[in-house]
Each structure stands twice: as structure tokens, then as C-alpha cells.
């Protein structure tokens, strides 16, 4: 048993982190706080998940969201994909393990991974619409969101969704409002098997080690932690039975990183682009200063008159 986050006091307490703890702010710069808060993480142990969807329900409940009634197409995934209301989704995969001959039911709780190097934040053009706290939580600030969908292009995990109702982007907040007052995320609270645990990132890694040892002793030789270094590590991590093949878990990205296209678009293209525009404008001014205006002369007008008279 991992010691769960204890029930907090019911008395109001001040938030443990806020604006002053931002380490990244979209389309703007922040002065990083002198001291970084302890990094938090949510660990999702896929091997312990029973697919009950309590986490999905807890997420809707806590965040006061309602999902539309969907259509059953013969799979367990419900709804069929993440939406602006479904910030976390159980994805079910039936995996035939060729080595053991077993059919394994792999159930992955999909949602924002809270990357240390968030692609959504890098892509966002609206100042302050996406923020990253020093404890690792990446959050969307909806009154600053303009609904352009750039975060979707930046995200290596295909997580954010734009609401049809208010044209703003939504995703898992890692229950930033609960964590700020010392609670764990709603999904973690609701999980009946402790497949979801929450704590500091170091604690979670230790707990994962313990879980991985256990899995290895049961014959899952490739069991491991999913904390992809391509995005600087994440603040939502998975324990996978087959960490060598993350893609079998409903297409979990294998060694994800921010797309090089996004890096070029949000990096060098801005400088080269503005420099090119500036250079063309500067050439115009210089040329005019050096060459002077290209004026029509009296002689040109006379020639035109001669031409028209002569021909008429």
C-alpha cells in the first residue's frame, strides 16, 4: 500500500502556490522564482488498473463537467476520445502476448502528461494562456485562451481539445486547485485499487521502482517507468508491464518530443521572418535615400504628346 494523501482539513487554507511560482508563461517571459517547489507527480500503474472508470467520473464530478451520452460501437472506451469535457479517458487494448500466450487487457488512463518541457505552452501565441508552475503542473488559463488550437499542434500526446461551446482549449489540470490546498487529484482520490497515486516526483519514482520489481518477479521482464526524457520527463508517469513497447498501450508515444516542425515554427522562423520583413523595409528606405524618387521628366511628357499628336 502506498500511503494515500490524507484527508485535509475542511477549514479554508491559503493556496500553497500561485502566480509567483510560475516557471513558464506562454508567449511571455517570467522571472523564475528563487526557489523551485518540490516537483509533484501522478503515477498511473497500468498493471493495477481494473478499468472501472471511477477516475473518469471523479474528474467530471470535481471539475463540474458533463459528457454527452455517446454511442456504443462495441468497445469499452467511452467516450471514444478525449473531449473538452473528458479530460481523462480510459483506453482499452486487448494485447496478445506472443511470449506468454496470454491475452492481456491493457487499460491506460489517457490525459495530459504535464511535460517538463510542454509543447502546448511553446506553441501558444496568447500571453499567459498556458502556465507552468514550479511544481511541474501545466495549466490552461481560460480567460486568456483565444481558441486558436496551436496547443494541439504543440502537444506530443494529442491531449488538448477545443470546446465547441466557448472555443477555448481544455485538458487535465492535474487538479491544480486541489493540489494547491494539499490534496491529491480527484482521479487519484477515487481510484479503488491505488493504480493512481500522487505525491512528490521522487516519491513516485521510488514507488514505481517497487512496483516494477514486483512486476519483474511475476515475469514481466520489460516492466518499467514511462517518464519520457524527450519532453524533459513528465509529471504524470506510467508503470507499464511492457515499457519497451509503449505504443501497444493504445498508441502511447514511444520516446515523444516536441515536433521539430513546431520547434522551427516557434523558434527560428520568428527571427528569420521578422528579420526578412525588416530587411525589405530597410532596403526600401535606403534605396529611396540613395537613388531618389524616379520622376517623370518634362521631356517624357513632351514625348508622349508628340507620340499622340503624330499618330492621330
Amino acid at each position: 500500500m502506498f500511503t494515500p494523501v490524507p484527508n485535509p482539513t475542511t477549514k479554508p487554507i491559503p493556496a500553497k502556490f500561485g502566480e509567483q511560482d510560475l516557471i513558464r508563461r506562454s508567449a511571455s517571459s517570467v522571472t523564475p522564482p528563487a526557489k523551485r517547489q518540490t516537483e509533484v507527480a501522478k503515477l498511473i500503474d497500468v498493471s493495477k488498473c481494473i478499468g472501472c472508470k471511477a477516475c473518469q467520473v471523479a474528474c467530471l464530478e470535481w471539475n463540474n463537467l458533463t459528457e454527452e451520452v455517446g454511442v456504443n460501437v462495441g468497445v469499452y472506451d467511452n467516450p471514444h476520445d478525449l473531449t473538452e469535457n473528458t479530460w481523462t479517458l480510459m483506453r482499452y487494448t486487448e494485447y496478445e502476448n506472443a511470449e506468454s500466450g496470454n491475452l492481456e487487457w491493457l487499460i491506460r488512463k489517457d490525459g495530459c502528461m504535464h511535460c517538463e518541457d510542454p509543447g502546448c505552452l511553446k506553441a501558444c501565441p496568447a500571453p499567459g494562456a498556458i502556465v507552468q508552475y514550479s511544481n511541474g503542473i501545466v495549466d490552461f488559463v481560460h480567460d486568456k485562451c483565444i481558441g486558436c488550437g496551436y496547443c494541439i499542434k504543440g502537444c506530443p500526446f494529442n491531449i488538448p481539445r477545443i470546446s465547441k461551446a466557448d472555443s477555448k482549449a481544455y485538458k487535465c489540470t492535474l487538479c491544480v486547485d486541489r493540489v494547491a490546498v494539499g490534496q491529491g487529484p480527484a482521479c487519484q482520490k477515487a481510484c479503488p485499487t491505488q493504480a493512481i497515486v500522487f505525491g512528490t516526483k521522487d516519491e513516485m519514482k521510488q514507488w514505481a521502482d517497487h512496483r516494477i520489481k514486483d512486476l519483474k518477479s511475476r515475469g514481466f521482464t520489460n516492466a518499467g517507468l514511462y517518464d519520457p526524457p524527450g519532453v524533459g520527463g513528465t509529471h504524470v508517469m506510467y508503470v507499464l508491464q511492457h515499457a519497451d513497447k509503449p505504443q501497444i498501450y493504445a498508441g502511447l508515444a514511444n520516446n515523444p518530443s516536441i515536433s521539430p516542425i513546431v520547434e522551427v515554427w516557434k523558434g527560428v522562423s520568428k527571427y528569420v521572418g521578422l528579420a526578412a520583413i525588416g530587411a525589405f523595409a530597410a532596403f526600401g528606405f535606403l534605396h529611396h535615400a540613395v537613388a531618389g524618387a524616379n520622376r517623370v521628366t518634362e521631356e517624357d511628357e513632351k514625348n508622349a504628346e508628340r507620340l499622340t499628336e503624330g499618330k492621330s
Partner: protein
Amino acid sequence: MSKPEVDAGDSVHRGNPVVVDRYTAAARVNHWITAISLVLLALSGLALFTPSLYFLTGLFGGGSTTRMLHPWIGVVLFLSFSGLFFRFFRLNLWERTDSIWLSRLRDVLAGDEHKLPEVGKYNAGQKMVFWSMSLFILVLITSGVVIWDQYFANYFTVEQKRIAVLVHSGTAIVAICVWIVHVYAAIWVRGTIGAMTRGKVTGGWAWRHHRKWLKDLVTTKH
């Protein structure tokens, strides 16, 4: 003699100075709708392109409104430019003398037009602006639809949208550079702007810059 390089609305009026009709009222209206949309697109597009210009969203009523308006202005530009394209493309077809003109860019920039081949209604520079803008606007509307998530989010993959957004911004930058060339040329070559405001230029202007066009006009319309 090659075919006369004149449009239906062009004509010469004798006098002092000689006045030449260069653009019909319809062509001018068409041009200015295109011009206004292009400027609005550049401003709103640059606002979303770089955080240092995000303040430009204020001109359009904030970030969300800018995001909503930009693609619609793009549709206006595309339709309006299509009108210009069909009006102007015939006299913008490339000719051998255009290559000669272009190879003597030094004389062009120095204003030594007497050293250059006689030019029809459009010189090689104007033709290049015309064709490059035609191409860029086609690329911009196509890539723009791919990233117009409000209506087309479900028709394209995220990877396609990434490529489209990079192509869209890169093309827009080049198009803005071409626009600067276009505007600068109109300012530098004095007497040009009247062609797009009142539709008229002086005979001297036509003689100096588009002599073949003037000669063709005189022979065909008198």
C-alpha cells in the same frame, strides 16, 4: 509586330499633359478590397505569429476575435484576388523581353529606364509580384483551411496541421516581403499611385515606364 499589350479599359486622351486611362473603376475597387484585406491579414496574422506583436490583436477586438476574423478576411482576400487574377493575368504572361529587363536590374534600380527594353502594360518586376502573389495566396488559403480548426478541425491530422501552420507562416512572411516591394515600387516611381486611385496616369509616365503599352494604345485606340 507583336500583339498589342492593352486592356479593354485602357485609352489615351490627347492634351497637355496627355492622360492615359490605366485601370477601370471596377479594377480599382477590386484592387483596394484586396489591399485592405491583405493589410488586415498581415496585421492579424503577425499578431498570432509572434508574441512581440500580439498587441496588434487589440486592433481587432482582442485575441479571440482576431483568431475568429483572420480566416474570414482570408476568404475575402482569396475571392477578391481571384478577381484581380482573371482581370490581369493575360498581360502578365512572361515574355522574352521580360528576362532581358530582369537581367538589367541594376539599371532598373538606378532609374535608367532608357537602357532597358520598352515595357508593355506590366514590367518584369510587376509580373513577378503578380505571379508570386497568385502562388502565395493559393498556398495561404490551402494551408489556412487546414489550420482553420473552428470548421475543419476533424478533416486533418495533427501532423498535417503542424506542416500547414509552418507553411502558412513562412509563405505569409514571403508574401509580406513581396507586398513591401509592391508598395515601395509604387511610391518610388512617382505618378504611379494615381493609376490605382483615379485610374489615370500621365502620358509622360506611360512613355517613361511603359512605352510599349503607350505606343500600342496610340496605334490601336486612335
